[in-house]
């Protein structure tokens, strides 16, 4: 099986700050890959390189065997900072990617309400981002990325601004979308539990500059639901292992 994405020896510096790498990862087709690491270790930078938004200083990235040299329509990104356009309504923000791709009107009319509904934003179609809570804005960003039906979904702490209940609900919705529409997902998170619940594998990055510290396979059968997974001994083993890895990295920083 050929990998969907290959990251090979990628590094990135900003001025005299070494932000990332060298970092090498492979993402399999339809895999749900979680990335976890200490704050500031270069997770966002890694996603931006995968999306073709910034070129790496060294190393290369391939998608479907093709080297990434810029953004690609089959790859969509959910931004940590939401990245909504303040002058567009929720509806227009969700339609943004579809319109840029020149999709037919009928398709836009059909898909936009679908993802607004999915993200629990019904009734807010005509509101502007500044009229929404942080968690709702984040869901608009997710709906916008899902709406273009991307093959690869790059998600940068997409549930960070959500309360615990909404977060759990969104996790299950995302898993459902991923299962039914077969997408490859790279999911950055701060939450150990979330990584275990969602991921096929978990990449643990070291503190800055982020390198791959360890890759863990989450051998918990799907479908997974929060309640059930948290009761499994394997969940606690993984949790403990991740905790140790991350604590070791946090100590490096200190």
């Amino acid at each position: 099986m050929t990998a969907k994405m290959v990251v090979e020896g990628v590094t990135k510096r900003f001025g005299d700050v070494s932000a990332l790498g060298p970092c090498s990862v492979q993402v399999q087709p339809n895999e749900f890959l979680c990335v976890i690491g200490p704050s500031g270790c270069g997770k966002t930078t890694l996603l931006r390189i995968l999306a073709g938004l910034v070129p790496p200083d060294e190393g290369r990235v391939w998608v479907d065997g093709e080297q990434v040299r810029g953004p690609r329509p089959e790859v969509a990104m959910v931004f940590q900072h939401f990245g909504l356009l303040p002058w567009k309504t929720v509806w227009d923000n969700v339609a943004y990617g579809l319109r840029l791709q020149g999709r037919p009107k009928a398709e836009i009319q059909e898909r936009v309400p679908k993802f607004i509904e999915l993200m629990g934003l019904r009734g807010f179609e005509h509101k502007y981002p500044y009229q929404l809570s942080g968690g709702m804005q984040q869901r608009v960003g997710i709906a916008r990325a899902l709406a273009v039906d991307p093959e690869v979904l790059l998600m940068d702490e997409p549930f960070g601004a959500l309360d615990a209940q909404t977060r759990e609900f969104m996790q299950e919705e995302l898993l459902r979308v991923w299962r039914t529409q077969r997408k490859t997902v790279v999911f950055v998170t701060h939450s150990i539990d979330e990584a275990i619940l969602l991921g096929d594998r978990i990449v643990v990055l070291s503190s800055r500059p982020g390198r791959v510290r360890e890759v863990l396979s989450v051998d918990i059968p799907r479908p997974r639901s929060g309640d059930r997974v948290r009761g499994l001994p394997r969940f606690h083993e993984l949790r403990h292992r991740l905790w140790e890895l991350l604590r070791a990295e946090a100590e490096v920083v200190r």
Partner: protein
Amino acid sequence: MRVAAAAPAQRRVPTRPRMTPAAIRWLSVAVGLGAWEAYGRLLGSPIFTYPSAIARAAVALVQTGELQFYLQASLVVLSLGLLLAVAAGIPLGVAVARWPLLEHVTDPYISALYATPTVALIPILVLWLGFQTQAKVALVFLFCVFPILINTYQGVRSVDRRLLEVARAFCSTEWATWRDVILPSALPFILAGIRLAIGRGLVGMVVAEFYTSITGLGYMIVQYANTFRTDRLFVPIVVLMGMGVGLTGLLKRLERRIAPWMHVLREE
């Protein structure tokens, strides 16, 4: 300090409703006008005047049609100059922000002209363009164009880099990025530039009319000043004041309507 002093007074008379800010403003204006009126009548000087005399003069000037005639001349100059400044300033500001080469080429001229007191250019413009509308429109244009150009440039430049990255991530073409991201984000700046331009344009209009002295509200002022008709002299001044307040107020409302997200922080 003032708040601390006012608080006990409020506690003593809790039932009395407080005046709204608008009521305070109107009261302040009424008191000011009343004082002016009283002082003017007491003084009885022929070169001093007071509100009721100005109001009578205004009625007379409207009845003869004089005010409308000069106002119209002024409005033509102002709107033509402003329109040209908008039509030139916005595209120029966009172009200068878009092409660094153009920025470097034009910056010395723009900075120099903006720094020059525009009134200093009046004699040369009159020499070149004559005393007619043309010269005055050119002058208003020069007064108006720089704030619009510079604000447009600043607006384009201050677009959120992260939103530009969002546009790129969704494979936006450059044209679409201008339409969806850069221009909407610059729009409040552009409107603020037009608001500044209106203020400057009014100054340019009056000064041009002072100098060319053929028609317009500025001409009215000069004419009545020379004949010591202070009551009539104040009529165009009041009209100019109204224009300034009205037009900038209109632009402010427009800014709020067009870019509500810019005002969220101020509201709460």
